[in-house]
């Protein structure tokens, strides 16, 4: 059983039009499909293949991840905040699971 837990760091407040840095981390084994278990069988690939971030329905970043991304994928990027609203973060797993998180931001 995978214990997948998304963690996101977003400032609580920003001035209108400000560029903020967002840090995201999700606990996930990111099994590359290259490793073998002790009996020599290949452990099947099991990774998060896509990550997106949207703000009030508009896209900020869309990342395609390949097996070369480390365990517990960490992604840092910048976003523009034109108004108060909500950031939505979505991770897409190989097995079809979707993990979501959201963070509100105020103008002040």
């Amino acid at each position, binding site marked *: 059983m995978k214990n997948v837990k998304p963690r996101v760091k977003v400032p609580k407040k920003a001035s209108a039009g400000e*560029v*903020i*840095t967002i840090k995201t981390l999700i606990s996930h084994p990111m099994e*590359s499909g*290259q*490793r*073998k278990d002790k009996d020599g069988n290949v452990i099947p690939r099991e990774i998060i293949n896509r990550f997106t971030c*949207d*703000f009030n329905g*508009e*896209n*900020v*970043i*869309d*990342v*395609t*991840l*390949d*097996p*070369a*991304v*480390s*365990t517990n*994928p*960490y*992604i*840092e*990027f*910048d*976003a*523009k905040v*034109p108004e108060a609203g909500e950031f939505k973060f979505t991770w897409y797993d190989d097995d079809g699971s979707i993990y979501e998180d959201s963070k509100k931001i105020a103008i002040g």
Partner: protein
Amino acid sequence: MTMTRRDALALAMGGFAVSVLPLPALADATADAIAKFTGGATAGEGGLTLTAPEIAENGNTVPVSVDAPGATEIAIYAPGNPTPDVATFKFGPLAGSQAASIRIRLSKTQDLVAVAKMADGSFVQAKSTVKVTIGGCGG
């Protein structure tokens, strides 16, 4: 037919050439991946910064960042890995800058490659050599 020493040598050389030929195919996987991203266009230089450590003690988590003002997409490739693709960033209308950081796996010492697609449709690329002490692809 009798085999002279010269024939034997020629045969051996032929066999050697055949066995050596498939090797460059490995490096081509990266070229193919980049060609798929650029659509065959040649990538220029400049305008893209690829930041990676000179020496990575642990190939399992190597922090890498890319920065290309004015880019719409940036892709990272690791030619020394079993599969060269690492990650592709697509920047949306609300991206604060065309930069991102990520942690990646590297199986051995190699030249990382980043390719950026600029807003005008041109491509630029940057390279950075990373020395890996312990590889990070299991095995």
